[in-house]
């Protein structure tokens, strides 16, 4: 299978956020700022690539009956490693993302890719699938975070664009997350179908 095609498939055609609508909990929860979205996207990217590669390497030794628990153990291992490293070396990012890092374990994108892709392809292809899907997720979350931060507080990546008091708070709260996500999906759909 063509590697570029796999990469673009995850990034655009099957974008986990805008097309598949997977992993909505971290999508809505961490995108109150562009930085939060980017951090969450990169964290998921890391775990996704690692778990995809490892799962596709060990797929032949795992009996079919216990593949889901085995996949979860592998994913959870990488998530915990990430959590410990982030706590140690990026304590400030960890403070903002906090609860959502351990929740990557139950993000359906990871188990979904393990089941749908990594369990049927070579490690090399799985790497590119993880990269594509992970980048698609990262781009989507960062975009969502930028728009919400801009409309909500007048900042982008913490840089002020217009005075904060003119920002509509709803955008950094949960209802605003749904509104922005809905409009982004609509815009991207209309660009794609044009």
């Amino acid at each position, binding site marked *: 299978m063509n590697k570029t095609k796999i990469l673009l498939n995850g990034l655009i055609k099957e974008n986990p956020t805008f097309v598949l609508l997977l992993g909505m909990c971290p999508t809505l929860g961490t995108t109150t700022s562009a930085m939060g979205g980017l951090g969450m996207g990169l964290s998921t990217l890391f775990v996704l690539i690692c778990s995809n590669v490892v799962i596709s390497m*060990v797929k032949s*030794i*795992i*009996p079919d*009956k*216990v593949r889901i*628990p*085995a996949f979860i*153990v*592998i994913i*959870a*291992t990488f998530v*915990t*490693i990430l959590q*410990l*490293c982030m*706590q*140690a*070396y990026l*304590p400030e990012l960890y403070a903002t993302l906090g609860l959502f890092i351990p929740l990557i374990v139950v993000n359906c994108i990871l188990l979904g890719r393990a089941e749908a892709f990594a369990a049927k392809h070579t490690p090399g292809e799985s790497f590119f699938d993880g990269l594509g899907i992970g980048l698609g997720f990262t781009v989507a979350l960062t975009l969502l975070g930028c728009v919400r931060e801009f409309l909500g507080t007048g900042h982008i990546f913490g840089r002020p664009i217009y005075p904060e008091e003119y920002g509509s*708070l709803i955008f*950094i*709260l949960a209802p605003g997350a749904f509104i922005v996500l809905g409009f982004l999906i609509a815009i991207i759909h209309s660009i794609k179908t044009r």
Partner: protein
Amino acid sequence: MLWSLTLITAIAGGLLGYTYQLTEEPIARASKASREKAIQQVIPTYDNSPLDEQMTYTVHNEYGETTATIYPAKLGGKLAGAAVECSNNTGYGGEIRIIVGFEADGTIKDYQVLKHQETPGLGAKMGDWFRTDKNNQSIIGKSPEECNFHVTKDSGDIDAITAATITSRAFLAAVRTAYAAYTESLKGGNHE
């Protein structure tokens, strides 16, 4: 089946144990650094190590028992004030955890909000509101000794955050608790 699962979990366990060992020390260092930074911000002048001399004191008041952590700041062996960390559970979103720096005479030097779940744009403004020198908002430079640390609506001397009275009440209650912990622990004489 048994073997492959055992193998996977054993490798995962080993990997995690190794990472844990590797990161244990940096994590402890990072959490100590952030605490130290908070203390530094609220009570800047000391030459001892407040973190090593910390003690806890339990305050009994209308909110029940609250355990406060006191970090004494000393200059040349003499008590120059303290940073007191404590919390109050009556905020709009539950717990509000703050650290307040007192000078030796009980005047508030500065404060930091460590943890809260108040509404953004309303209660969440408490981090700046109570240090802004406008009307009777600020608590900096005041002492709960001579100033009534209640919101003006409850006939106190401090202006509540606009449209966030509940948060303001909880915040000021936490400050009063911190002050009580500071003065009472001094009276108890267990700060040496």
